């Protein structure tokens, strides 16, 4: 009886796995048929020998699941997870990422680059060997060897092998990195590729995993404890280490200036600019000052974090930020001079700057951040501090905040034009929208499927106030886009109240359909009310933002980067304000009505008011995003505000982790980045299918999202273990 049940389970699982294989075969199969022959792609996928391979995948999955109980003890051993993560990163880097941006190499991935390089004589044999001139597929081979060594040492507990794997891994990583920079030197094109960087990071992870394998013989890895020890030992110290690494790469191997045919490192800069009229301080900076500053900032950061003296912390912050400013002025100067003195393809201020100085700025920011963390650590005695935030993770969180900040500030300039546009028009705007919707969905627990309507209202408000709609504002109300922000906030606030007041007493799903209807109504009005909104054609020529404030005079519009920094300010301010809100009495009231509305009411919370506030605050954030969108893109029409977008924003919030600010940001960033990333990997039309699959898998395996809210995570585990809740209830009274 028991056996047959087990057998049944196995058959079911096998069938499921095989079905999964078939679906995968369909997913990577041929493209669609024609109108008269539907079955074409279907037949091609199902009735070709290729299917056997995918059935094999299914079978492998079946075996893995069935024997998981035998595999998993190895997987929880110390070092196994870094090893796996590193291997995955290297595989991704080899298989998915760009290794060069040169248009001489089609696709720019490792495979194409390898075949190109191994046939080129002008490159050193050291480099060519890595790319497979001797043994084809060398990078993959090396990866397999390193990982196999690591796995064997893990299973058999052979420290010697683990040391070998660690050393070999590091060597291979460095080799690949050097080989790639040699190639991009040879190709002499601006290089934005990330493949080699990710690969070396992956190998570093592998090496550290092997290092742990060699050192630790316990059966159960204590990852959380390890992270706690590392980040709690000297708060901010890891950041100083990271800053040092980034800074050294910037100073030694990164490109500093990249007009056509010239890609000098820092060492080549002095030569390039000698006699071009660089100011004394800049030329000093480029030749020796930068090193001095780097060493001083580095030393201060280490001193501040290690000794945790306030004086050092302050000095570290001041020097770090000063160094950023100095680097920026130098960059401005040498790029303008480069433009004036006519280097080939140099376009003037802020153009053609390589990744080096930006990375250095990032490193200096990290040093300053390390000082800041050390400073905060010194005086953290705040009784009213938010108590939900676990103390253990907060050091790690601070480090992450600084790294994300440094990345947000200094990564975009090093990206390609294409990615800069994506970062602004897709990622940034949807991050702002997700932050707004998180208030409604995540905090107050109200499902809003018409959120994009407020975005539309914000956009159309901007169009109206800038006089680009058929109806014109009175003269005194003719505004620039930035001045429209307060108006958009107020109008969206009112719209949120107007929608919320009659509908908010509806329960979850009813509210969902009503908000969905509201979103559609707004769009239909925009399509049909020709005389007000210009119908399907929409509004054209919405001006770009300007600031005239006394001597300050900023005009946006030349590049996506300018908009990015504007957006970053908007996002930063919103995050700061909302973070306070989450831990205020209103934030707690939201959590209360989300958890138990009846109890919240009996405790004296005016639920209607609190819900309305969530609606209004969420809506006004959306309005700000709308203003930005309209003025950045310059034209809007109703097609920008489809129901689909509303649903997507909800998906971003939940994917990231409902009710968590970092989660909403991460969710929106990931899911808006993914389609652009997939452009290189799968046929363009298939992208949505893959995104759907990713969302589905995420919800199946991690329903709480990427970065779950602390509060929500608790709810989830409580929900999960009905049994455990009962066992708590039985021995009542033993708690005290």
């Amino acid at each position, binding site marked *: 009886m028991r056996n047959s049940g087990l057998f049944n389970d196995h058959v079911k699982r096998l069938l499921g796995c095989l079905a999964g294989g078939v679906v995968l075969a369909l997913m990577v199969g041929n493209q669609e048929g024609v109108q008269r022959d539907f079955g074409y792609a279907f037949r091609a996928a199902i009735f070709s020998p290729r299917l056997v391979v995918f059935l094999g995948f299914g079978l492998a999955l079946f075996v893995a699941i069935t024997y998981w109980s035998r595999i998993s003890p190895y997987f929880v051993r110390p070092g196994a997870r870094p090893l796996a993560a590193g291997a995955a990163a290297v595989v991704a880097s080899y298989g998915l990422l760009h290794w060069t941006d040169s248009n001489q190499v089609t696709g720019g991935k490792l495979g194409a680059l390898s075949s190109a390089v191994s046939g080129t004589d002008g490159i050193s044999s050291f480099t060519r060997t890595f790319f497979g001139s001797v043994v084809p597929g060398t990078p993959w081979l090396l990866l397999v060897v390193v990982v196999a060594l690591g796995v064997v040492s893990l299973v058999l507990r052979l420290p010697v092998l683990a040391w070998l794997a660690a050393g070999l891994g590091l060597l291979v990583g460095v080799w690949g990195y050097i080989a790639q920079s040699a190639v991009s030197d040879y190709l002499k094109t601006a290089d934005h590729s990330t493949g080699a960087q990710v690969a070396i990071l992956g190998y570093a992870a592998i090496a550290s995993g092997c290092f742990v394998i060699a050192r630790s013989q316990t059966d159960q890895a204590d990852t959380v404890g390890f992270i706690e020890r590392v980040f709690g030992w000297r708060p901010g110290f890891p950041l100083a280490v990271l800053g040092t690494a980034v800074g050294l790469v910037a100073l030694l191997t990164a490109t500093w200036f990249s007009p056509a045919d010239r890609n000098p490192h820092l060492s080549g800069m002095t030569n390039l600019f000698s006699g071009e009229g660089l100011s004394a301080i800049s030329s000093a900076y480029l030749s020796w000052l930068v090193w001095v500053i780097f060493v001083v900032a580095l030393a201060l950061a280490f001193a501040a974090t290690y000794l945790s003296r306030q004086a050092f912390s302050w000095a570290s912050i001041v020097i770090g930020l000063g160094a950023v400013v100095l680097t920026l002025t130098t960059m401005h100067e040498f790029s303008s001079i480069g433009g004036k003195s006519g280097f080939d393809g140099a376009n003037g201020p802020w153009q053609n700057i390589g990744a080096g100085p930006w990375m250095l700025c990032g490193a200096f920011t990290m040093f300053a951040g390390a000082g800041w963390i050390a400073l905060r650590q010194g005086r953290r005695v705040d009784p009213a501090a938010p108590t939900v935030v676990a103390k253990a993770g907060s050091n790690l969180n601070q480090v992450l905040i600084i790294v994300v900040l440094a990345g947000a500030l200094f990564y975009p300039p090093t990206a390609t034009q294409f990615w800069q546009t994506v970062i602004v028009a897709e990622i940034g705007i949807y991050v702002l929208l997700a932050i707004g919707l998180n208030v409604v969905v995540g905090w107050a627990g109200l499902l809003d499927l018409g959120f994009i309507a407020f975005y539309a209202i914000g956009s159309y408000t901007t169009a109206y106030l800038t006089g680009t709609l058929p109806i014109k504002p009175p003269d005194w109300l003719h505004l620039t886009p930035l001045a429209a922000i307060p108006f958009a906030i107020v109008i969206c606030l009112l719209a949120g109240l107007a929608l919320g007041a009659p509908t908010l007493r509806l329960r979850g799903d009813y509210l969902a359909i009503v908000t969905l209807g509201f979103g559609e109504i707004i769009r239909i009005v925009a399509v049909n009310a020709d005389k007000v909104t210009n119908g399907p054609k929409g509004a054209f020529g919405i001006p770009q933002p300007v600031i005239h404030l006394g001597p300050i005079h900023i005009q946006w519009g030349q590049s996506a980067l300018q908009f990015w920094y504007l957006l970053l300010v908007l996002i930063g301010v919103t995050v700061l304000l909302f973070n306070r809100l989450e831990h205020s009495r209103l934030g707690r009231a939201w959590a209360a009505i989300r958890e138990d509305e009846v109890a919240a009411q009996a405790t004296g919370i005016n639920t209607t008011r609190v819900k309305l506030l969530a609606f209004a605050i969420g809506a006004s954030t959306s309005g700000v995003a709308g203003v930005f969108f309209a003025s950045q893109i310059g034209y809007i029409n109703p097609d920008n505000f489809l129901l689909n977008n509303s649903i997507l924003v909800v998906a971003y919030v939940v994917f990231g982790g409902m009710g968590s600010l970092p989660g909403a940001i991460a969710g929106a960033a990931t899911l808006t980045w993914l389609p652009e990333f997939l452009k290189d990997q799968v046929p363009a039309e298939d992208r949505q299918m893959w995104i759907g699959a990713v969302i589905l898998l995420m919800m199946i395996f991690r329903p709480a999202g990427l970065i779950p809210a602390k509060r929500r995570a608790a709810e989830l585990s*409580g929900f999960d273990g009905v049994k455990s809740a009962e066992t708590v209830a039985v021995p009542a009274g033993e*708690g005290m």
Partner: protein
Amino acid sequence: MTAVTSTAPEPTATNPEVVYDVKDVTLRFGGVTSLNKVSLQMHRGEILAVIGPNGAGKTSLFNSLTGVYTPQEGSIMLAARKGDELTSILHDPRFYGARKSTATHLINRHGVARTFQNIRLFPALTALENIKVGVETRQKSGPVSAMLGMPWQRREERESTERAYELLRFVGLTARANDLAGALAYGEQRRLEIARALGTEPGVILLDEPAAGTNPAEKRELAELIRRINVEDNVSVLLIEHDMKLVMSIAHRLVVLNFGEKIAEGKPADIQRNPAVIAAYLGTTNDEPEAATTAQPEPNTTDLDSGPAAEGDES
């Protein structure tokens, strides 16, 4: 077991102030009459217990008193805090919410706090935060000042934290301040719910079967806690409870409901001898007849308790 036998001191006033004045309240659901012409008066400073077999209408009475249900007939007058005037909660715009019917949160703001039969905390908030939610419903600062971190908002935040810690100490949960409410033990959750209710600075607190599902030691603690709420905080207590020992030991007066009607009212000793009450318990809780028979002679060893076993599956 004898620790709880002494009756609590009664409020001394000879002409007691009225907190709740309930007159001829009738509540129907469809054809079922849940409360039938129930009248009672609750005085300031007293512990009044409502007892009765399951389905007698006790919780319906609570829900009518807190505005969850609106009775079809009768009147309910409230003057929860000292110095308040008696006002009808059924027909006074002060208690209207957006929907022109009595709103529970407004009743709460007029000084009536309650707990629930099946504990209703906010499980994903910490114990401290649960209480803060209650305390903060009395505060003024709005979202804008919270976002900007205005000084008055910070002061309120600090005050609510301090008050919440005081209440945690009061109910003996200081050590669990930062644990999630959902992770607390059952008895702790009960006490936390009481603390949250006290956070709203009530003049009256309504406790719906606070001892359900707790063990004897906890029951003693609870009785002590209720008495302290009554004496130290000067809060009038309206109590629904099945545990007769607990009720008899702490209540000043009792009201007995059966089938939605009030069948008796009076001091614990009188109620214990009341034939109608005994009949009600005998007639309805047929699973525990011996409990009712022992009720007659010796008041202090009485156990009219319909028992934690019967309660356990309810909660």
